[in-house]
C-alpha cells in the first residue's frame, strides 16, 4: 500500500501545530516519513506529552521519605509501607472513549490502569472508580451510566480485582462528556518492584500478550480534542477489552518478574508500541531497533503506521535479561499467550523501526518522551467572569422550607447523596478476600496478609465546588480525601490525581486549571501527602459546555493495626454522639442549594488547612486510643445527611439517634450547610471524658450532640423521621431512576 506524502497539511490533520511540525523537521533534519509523522502525532498529543500541563504539575509536592517511585519516573507511584512491602497506585481517565462507547471505554480504562500496576511487579489488590455523569433524567446519560458501570464490572470482575470504592456525581455539565476515572492499587515486595527501562545493548525486546490489530488507532489523539457531533465516528478509536487475556497476562508477567528474567517491562496503553519502545529507551538512555514483521497481528495487511499506532489492549513490551528469553517464552506459552522477539536494545539513542528489513522510522527516542524533547507550553490565563456573579449570590434571601424532615428525605434521594449500592453491587467487591470495609463507608479498607496492617483508599472531588471556586474546591477535595481516610483509622500516605478539565487553549479554562493545581499543591503540602503520579485529561467538552473542573484526588492511607479500623455507622444503643469542628452557615455551592432551591451559586465553604489538620490529628489519635465507636465526616448534604447515614447507611446498622443542637443559625442552614472540617463521632459513655480531654489537648472543638438509640432520627424539634422512611429515600433512588424505564 502506498503511503500518503507527508506535508504540513497532513501534519495539521494529525493535530500537530505548524510550529510542532517545524520542530519535528529540525529534530530529524528532514521531512518525517508517514510512520514517523504518526509516531510524533501521538507522542506529542496532549494525552501522552502533557505539553500544556507539565509545567504546572511540576509545582506539586513530589517528595516524601516513603517514596520508592516518584511521579513521572515509572508507570505508577510506589510507596514504602514497612514490612518490606510497597503500595503501588495510580489513577487514569477514560472519559472520551466512554463518551462514545461507554462499555468498552470504561472496561479498557480498567484494563489500562491495572497493567500500569502489574507492570511494576505489583499484584493489583483494589480498584476505585470516580464517575461523573449528567443528570439521570436524560436517557443518553442513563445509557452512558449503565454502560460504564457494566464495563467496569465486567472487566474488573473477570480479571479478579475487587472494586472497593469510588464516587458517583450527577451534574448537567457532564451530560455529553462523562468523567470516567479508574484508580488501581497494588501490593509488591520491595525486591519485586521493577522499572520500565530498556538497558543493555543487544538484550532482546519482546512483545507479549495479545496480538496487534487495528483497534484504537489514534486513541491518544482522540483524547486530545473536544467532543463534537463527529465524535461518534471515533468509535473505531475505542479499544476493545479482553479481561480474560489480561488475567493471563497478569499471572505470566508476575511470574517472569518473580523469576528475575526481566531487565524492564512496560505495558502498552495509549500509543501502543510507539509509546512503550520510546519511553523505555529514553528511561534507559539507550535505543531500540524493532522489526514490525515479527509482531503477531490479528489482521492482514497492517501497515507500519497502523502497527506502531495500534492501541490493542492486553500487550506488554519486555526487555529480557541476557540468556533468559527461552525461559520467558516458556512461561508465556504455559499461560497460552504470545511472546515474540521483535527487536533488541541498542545504545545509539534512536528508536529504529524496520518493516521486512526496510527502515520506516528512525527518531531520537528522547524527542518522544515526556521530560525529554516533547513540547512544553504555558497558556494564557483569564479569570472567568462567572465567578464574581456567582459569589454575589446571597443565600439569606432563600425561603425556609416548611417541612425540614421532608427536605432531608429529598436530599437523601438526590442522586449525588443517595446510596450507590446499585452501582457497587454490580462490582465484585470481595474477590481475593482482602476487603474489610467495602464501598459505602468513608473509605475502603483492605487487610494486608501476614501483617497487622491495612490500607485505606478514598477518591474525592466535588466538581461543583471547583467550578465555583477552583482553588478552594481543590483544597477541599484533598482535605475530604484525607478526612475520609482518618475516619476509617488510616494515616494519609500519598496521592494520585486525575485532572479532568476542558480545553486548555481557552484562557478561562487554563486559569481554572492553574488555580486547582495551586490549591491541590497547598493542601497536599499541609497533609504531607506527595503526588505520586496520575493523569491529566483536557478537552472534556461537549458542543454545549465544558465539564466542571474536576481534579479527582485518589488518596492512600496506612492503618497500623487492623484493630483500629473504624466505620461510619453507629454501633450500639446508648453510645454518645459528638461533633468535632464548628457548624457555620455555609450553603453556597451545596447540594441543598442545588436540589431544593435549584441554584448553583454562592461562595463555597471555606477551608482552613491548619484547623482541618488539627481536627484530623485529634480524630486519628482518638481512634488509635480506642475511644471511638464510629466516625463519619460531614460532606454533601451537611450535618443532617451525615447523621442519617450514620443511622442507616450500612445493612449492619439500624439505630436511630436523638440529637440536640444548640445554635442561633437558620435551621435549614444548620442542618444542611456543608461547612468543612467536621466529623461525627460516636463513643461509649465511659470514654466521653477521655475524648473531651484529648480534644482540649488538640485545641479542637468537641460538642456532645446526642445519643444513639431508638428507631428514628430526631434533631431538636426540627425533624423526626423513622429509619424505614430514611432507608426508602436513601436506597431506592437510583434503582428507581434506572430500572423503571
Amino acid at each position, binding site marked *: 500500500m502506498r503511503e500518503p506524502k507527508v506535508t504540513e497539511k497532513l501534519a495539521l490533520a494529525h493535530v500537530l501545530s505548524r510550529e510542532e511540525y517545524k520542530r519535528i523537521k529540525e529534530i530529524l533534519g528532514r521531512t518525517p516519513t508517514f510512520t514517523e509523522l504518526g509516531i510524533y502525532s501521538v507522542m506529542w498529543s496532549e494525552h501522552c506529552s502533557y505539553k500544556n500541563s507539565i509545567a504546572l504539575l511540576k509545582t506539586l509536592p513530589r517528595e516524601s521519605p516513603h517514596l520508592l517511585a516518584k511521579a513521572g519516573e515509572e508507570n505508577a507511584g510506589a510507596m514504602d509501607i514497612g514490612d518490606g512491602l510497597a503500595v503501588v497506585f495510580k489513577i487514569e481517565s477514560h472519559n472520551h472513549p466512554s463518551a462514545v462507547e461507554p462499555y468498552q471505554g470504561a472496561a479498557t480504562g480498567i484494563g489500562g490502569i491495572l497493567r500500569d500496576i502489574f507492570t511494576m511487579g505489583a499484584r493489583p489488590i483494589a480498584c476505585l472508580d470516580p464517575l461523573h455523569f449528567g443528570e439521570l433524567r436524560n436517557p443518553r446519560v442513563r445509557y452512558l451510566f449503565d454502560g460504564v458501570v*457494566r464495563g467496569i*464490572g*465486567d472487566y474488573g*470482575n*473477570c*480479571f*479478579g480485582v475487587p472494586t472497593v470504592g469510588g464516587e458517583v456525581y450527577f451534574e448537567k455539565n457532564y451530560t455529553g462528556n462523562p468523567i470516567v476515572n479508574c484508580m488501581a492499587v497494588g501490593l509488591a515486595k520491595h525486591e519485586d518492584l521493577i522499572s520500565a527501562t530498556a538497558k543493555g545493548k543487544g538484550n532482546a525486546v519482546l512483545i507479549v500478550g495479545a496480538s496487534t490489530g487495528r483497534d484504537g488507532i489514534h486513541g491518544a489523539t482522540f483524547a486530545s480534542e473536544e467532543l463534537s457531533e463527529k465524535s461518534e465516528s471515533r468509535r473505531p478509536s475505542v479499544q476493545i477489552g*479482553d*479481561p*480474560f*487475556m489480561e*488475567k*493471563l497476562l497478569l499471572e505470566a508477567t508476575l511470574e517472569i518478574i518473580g523469576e528475575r528474567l526481566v531487565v524492564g517491562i512496560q505495558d502498552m496503553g495509549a500509543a501502543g508500541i510507539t509509546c512503550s519502545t520510546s519511553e523505555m529507551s529514553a528511561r534507559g538512555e539507550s535505543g531500540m531497533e524493532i522489526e514490525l514483521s515479527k509482531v503477531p497481528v490479528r489482521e492482514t495487511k497492517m501497515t507500519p503506521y497502523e502497527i506502531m499506532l495500534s492501541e490493542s489492549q492486553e500487550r506488554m513490551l519486555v526487555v529480557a535479561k541476557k540468556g533468559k528469553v527461552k525461559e520467558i517464552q516458556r512461561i508465556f506459552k504455559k*499461560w*497460552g499467550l504470545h511472546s515474540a522477539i521483535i527487536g533488541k536494545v541498542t545504545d545509539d539513542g534512536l528508536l529504529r523501526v524496520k518493516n521486512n528489513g526496510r527502515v520506516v522510522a528512525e527518531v531520537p527516542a528522547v524527542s518522544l518522551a515526556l521530560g525529554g524533547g516533547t513540547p512544553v507550553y504555558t497558556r494564557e490565563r483569564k479569570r472567568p467572569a462567572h465567578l464574581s456573579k456567582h459569589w454575589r449570590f446571597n443565600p439569606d434571601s432563600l425561603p425556609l422550607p416548611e417541612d425540614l424532615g421532608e427536605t432531608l428525605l429529598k436530599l437523601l434521594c438526590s442522586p449525588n447523596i443517595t446510596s450507590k449500592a446499585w452501582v*457497587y*453491587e*454490580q*462490582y*465484585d*467487591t*470481595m*474477590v*481475593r*478476600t482482602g*476487603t*474489610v470495609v467495602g464501598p459505602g463507608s468513608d473509605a475502603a479498607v483492605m*487487610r494486608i*496478609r501476614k501483617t497487622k496492617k491495612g490500607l485505606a483508599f478514598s477518591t474525592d472531588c466535588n466538581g461543583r465546588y471547583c467550578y465555583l471556586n477552583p482553588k478552594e474546591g481543590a483544597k477541599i477535595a484533598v482535605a475530604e480525601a484525607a478526612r475520609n481516610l482518618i475516619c476509617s483509622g488510616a494515616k494519609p500516605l500519598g496521592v494520585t490525581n486525575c485532572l479532568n478539565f476542558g480545553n486548555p487553549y481557552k484562557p478561562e479554562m487554563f486559569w481554572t486549571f492553574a488555580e486547582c493545581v495551586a490549591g491541590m499543591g497547598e493542601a497536599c503540602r499541609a497533609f504531607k501527602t506527595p503526588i505520586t503520579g496520575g493523569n491529566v485529561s483536557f478537552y472534556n467538552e461537549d458542543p454545549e459546555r465544558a465539564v466542571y473542573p474536576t481534579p479527582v484526588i485518589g488518596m492512600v492511607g496506612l492503618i497500623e493495626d*487492623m484493630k483500629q479500623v473504624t466505620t461510619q455507622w453507629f454501633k450500639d444503643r446508648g453510645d454518645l454522639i459528638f461533633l468535632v469542628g464548628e457548624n457555620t452557615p455555609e450553603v453556597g455551592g451545596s447540594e441543598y442549594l442545588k436540589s431544593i432551591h435549584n441554584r448553583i451559586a454562592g461562595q463555597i465553604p471555606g477551608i482552613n488547612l491548619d484547623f482541618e489538620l488539627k481536627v484530623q490529628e485529634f480524630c486519628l489519635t482518638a481512634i488509635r486510643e480506642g475511644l471511638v465507636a464510629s466516625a463519619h465526616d460531614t460532606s454533601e448534604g451537611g450535618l443532617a445527611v451525615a447523621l442519617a447515614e450514620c443511622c442507616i447507611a450500612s*445493612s449492619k446498622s439500624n439505630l436511630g439517634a436523638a440529637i440536640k443542637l444548640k445554635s442561633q443559625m437558620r435551621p435549614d442552614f444548620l442542618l444542611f450547610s456543608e461547612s468543612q472540617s467536621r466529623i461525627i463521632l460516636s463513643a461509649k459513655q465511659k470514654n466521653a471524658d477521655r475524648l473531651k480531654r484529648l480534644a482540649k489537648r488538640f485545641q479542637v472543638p468537641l460538642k456532645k450532640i446526642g445519643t444513639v438509640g431508638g428507631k428514628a432520627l430526631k434533631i431538636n424539634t426540627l425533624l423526626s423521621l423513622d429509619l424505614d422512611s430514611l432507608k426508602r429515600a436513601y436506597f431506592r433512588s437510583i434503582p428507581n431512576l434506572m430500572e423503571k424505564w
Partner: protein
Amino acid sequence: MKFGVITFPGSNCDYDAYRAVKEVLGEGVEYLWHQDRDLREFDVVILPGGFSYGDYLRTGAIARFSAIMGAVKRFAQSGGLVLGICNGFQILLEAGLLPGAMLRNRSLRFVCKYVYLRVENDSTPFTNAYKIGQVVKIPIAHSDGNYFGDEKTVEKLEASNRVVFRYCNPGGELDDHYNPNGSLNFIAGIMNSRGNVMGMMPHPERATSQLLGSPDGRLVFESMYSYLSRKERRKVS
C-alpha cells in the same frame, strides 16, 4: 488430608479457596493445573470461582473440556469429595456431574453482596457442621447464578433431599425479595445422588472471619474435614 484447588485459565478465586483451606483447617492444600490428569493423592478437589476461559461462551462450557475434568470425573466416581464454588458449580453442571443449568440472573446484572442461606441438609460431607434450618450469611458474586432444571430434575433433587442450601430472608423464610438471582425453588447449592459432589453459587471461602463480614463459610471446610477424619478413623479401626 490433602486438598487440591484447580486453576483454570481465568479462575480468580483459586487463591481464596487455597487460603481458606489453609487458614480454616491448616491442612495440606495444593494448586492443580488445568492440564493435570492425576488426582489420586487428593481427598478433596475444589473447582473455584472465576471466569474460566473468560466465560465468553456459556459459563463453564469450555472449562469442562479441560484435561483435568476427565480426572475429576474419575475422582468423583471413586468417591472423592468435589466442591464447585460459583464458576466451579457452573463447570460441574456443564460437565454433567450435577444436574441442571444456570441462567443469567433475573436482573440481567452481575450481583455481589452478602445473602442469607438456609441449610436444607446437614448430613452431607459438606454441611455436617451446620444444623438443619440454620440461617447463614455468605456472599455471592455472579452474573449467571439463576439455577434452572426441568420439572423432573428439580422434583428428583427435592425428593432425594439434594438441595443443600436455599436463599432465604434473615428469618429463614423463603422470600422472593431475598432470592438474588431468580433461582428455581431458591436453590443456592445442590449435590449429586451419591452425596460426594456439591456445587454452590455462594462463596464460603469469602466468609471465613468476622473481619471479612461473616465466619459462616468456615463450616463448609470444617464439615469436609470432620467427614474425612471420621472416614480415616473408620479405615484405621
